[in-house]
């Protein structure tokens, strides 16, 4: 195999080679990213706890539940703790375009219900004691350079203060999460702080609770609790839907549409586009080298070597592209992780992602090289030499 000729052929058209390598790199990068998103979603869903149920309105997640439901559900056998969750939908005053989630929760039941969460800095007791305190994820604190003890102004978009000023929360602690289903970019504060402000006329916004999270006692049959809770509010005033945490997460993701299928379709379209681009390049390269192939055959190189030269060239270009694409992905993995942490806490490259990127590039290289390779093998020496170069 004339390896030197192979490398020289690639280097012989530097612009074309670089453009092809660049196209493959972008495609591999995109495929890796899309795979990281879909596998991140899967990880997030599969990391959901089995001993937590989520109670939401049967109408929609956007319809609040009455506050009184907490007391009514408390006696249901198997429920160990109930934690209110209310979506706040605020913006940090210094970064109005930025997004992160804020939830009003019950401090006394929140941390015991989520053993995946640990306080890395500050004190959860301080948080529990102080009505206007909050705990924030380490990643969020890093993003805005928030310190424990600092007061952060948050502008409400759903819940607005009637004096026109932002809400003020004092950071009492920074948490970290050991689970893919819980991100480190969220702010948790006292639900009661919000409720009192609404009740005293200090703020305006919808009354009620977004969802209730039920922590089940060990050995409890979740289905029994689900049926009991759903049955309890069958006749109103607000019907509820009780689901496992995994199912709730799945429904939340599916509100955006069938994300994995959508991403697979985008990935497939990218693959096809790049495959045809590389195929076109390789067919062009094969045609340009018709005479060279004739010379090689005249010198005694077999049809197989002539074909292998083009297949190997295609593989080389695609492999370089794959390497570059994977490298780009690895470099940008962290920033993407930060950007998507609120939606896909499990986002990240794994071995499968990298193998998928590399495998796709090799497949494109092989398939794109086979067409001109087949033509090269079929060329007669005399016909190839007659070709006007």
């Amino acid at each position, binding site marked *: 195999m*004339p390896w030197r*000729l192979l490398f*020289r052929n690639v280097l*012989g058209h530097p612009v074309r080679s670089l453009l092809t390598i660049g196209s493959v790199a972008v495609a591999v990068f995109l495929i890796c990213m899309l795979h990281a998103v879909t596998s991140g979603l899967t990880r997030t869903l599969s990391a959901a706890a089995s001993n937590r149920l989520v109670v939401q309105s049967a109408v929609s997640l956007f319809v609040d539940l009455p506050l009184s439901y907490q007391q009514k559900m408390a006696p249901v056998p198997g429920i160990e703790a109930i934690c209110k969750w209310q979506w706040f939908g605020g913006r940090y005053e210094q970064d109005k375009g930025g997004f992160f989630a804020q939830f009003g929760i019950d401090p006394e039941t929140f941390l015991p219900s989520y053993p995946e969460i640990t306080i890395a800095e500050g004190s959860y007791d301080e948080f529990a004691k102080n009505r206007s305190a909050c705990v924030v994820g380490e990643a969020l604190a890093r993003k805005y350079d928030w310190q424990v003890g600092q007061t952060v102004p948050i502008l409400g978009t759903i819940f607005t203060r009637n004096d026109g000023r932002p809400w003020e929360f004092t950071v009492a602690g920074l948490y970290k999460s050991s689970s893919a289903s819980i991100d480190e970019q969220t702010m948790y504060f006292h639900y009661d702080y919000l409720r009192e402000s609404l009740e005293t006329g200090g703020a305006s916004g919808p009354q009620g609770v977004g969802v209730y999270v039920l922590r089940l006692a060990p050995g409890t049959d979740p289905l029994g609790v689900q049926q009991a809770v759903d049955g309890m509010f069958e006749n109103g005033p607000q019907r509820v839907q009780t689901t496992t945490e995994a199912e709730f997460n799945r429904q939340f993701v599916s509100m955006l549409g069938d994300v994995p299928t959508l991403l697979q379709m985008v990935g497939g379209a990218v693959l096809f586009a790049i495959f045809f681009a590389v195929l076109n390049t390789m067919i062009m390269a094969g045609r340009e080298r018709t005479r060279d192939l004739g*010379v090689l055959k005249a*010198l*005694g190189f077999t*049809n197989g070597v002539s074909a292998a030269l083009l297949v190997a060239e295609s593989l080389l270009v695609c492999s370089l592209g794959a390497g570059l694409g994977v490298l780009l992905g690895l470099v940008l993995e962290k920033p993407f992780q930060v950007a998507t942490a609120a939606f896909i806490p499990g986002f990240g490259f794994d071995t499968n992602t990298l193998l998928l990127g590399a495998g796709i590039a090799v497949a494109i290289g092989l398939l794109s090289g086979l067409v001109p390779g087949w033509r090269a093998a079929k060329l007669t*020496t005399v016909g190839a*030499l007659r070709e006007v170069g």
Partner: protein
Amino acid sequence: MAAEIDIRSVTKTYHRGGEALRVLDELDLQMEGATFYALMGPSGSGKTTLLNLVGGLDHADSGQVVVGDTDLTDLDGSGLARWRAEHVGFVFQGFNLLPVLSARENVELPLLLAPLSRQQRREQAERALELVGLADRMDHKPRELSGGQEQRVAIARAIASDPQVILADEPTGDLDRTTADAVLDLLQRLNRELHKTILMVTHDPQAAGYADKVIHLDKGKLGRIDDNRKATGTGGRS
């Protein structure tokens, strides 16, 4: 041992646009080894076709082409490729050097098919280039060489693996007279000093004057064979 070439009742027909064109018609021709032959004739007389058959680039429709001890009609495509690598060197009118490789690398190409180490290949290619007077142009790409130099690199490539037969198709067709004479001198030297059997297709009577014998083809049949050695008393143009 220098090759003898035996063409026995060879016929070759091409089909173009539904029309059958018999290019070689029951041709019989015997060529001695270590002899420089020029092959002449009008266009379409079958010169290049005969060269391709002798070089194992094409198959005859009928008849036999025997070079040395090998009957080429018995060999399949890969058998012919192996045979070409060992026994024949080609020089083309358009030089046909690979533009991305240097002169040395072009000459090394056929040596990749021989059981040689990298060092041996390099040395053998350099010897061939020295023989054609291009020791100082080894690392130049074809585009950095003149037409005559390119053709000399092509000749070095043809002799690098030390084949018995060198086939040249209009090797001076793209060259000016002075350069053409230098190339023909070189081919003559290869015949006289290294005893290569050379078969050269040409339209140029002056080029044919360098050969020992001139074979004239006409409509796919043998016309006549002129022996320049008898004419000059020495053997071709000196």
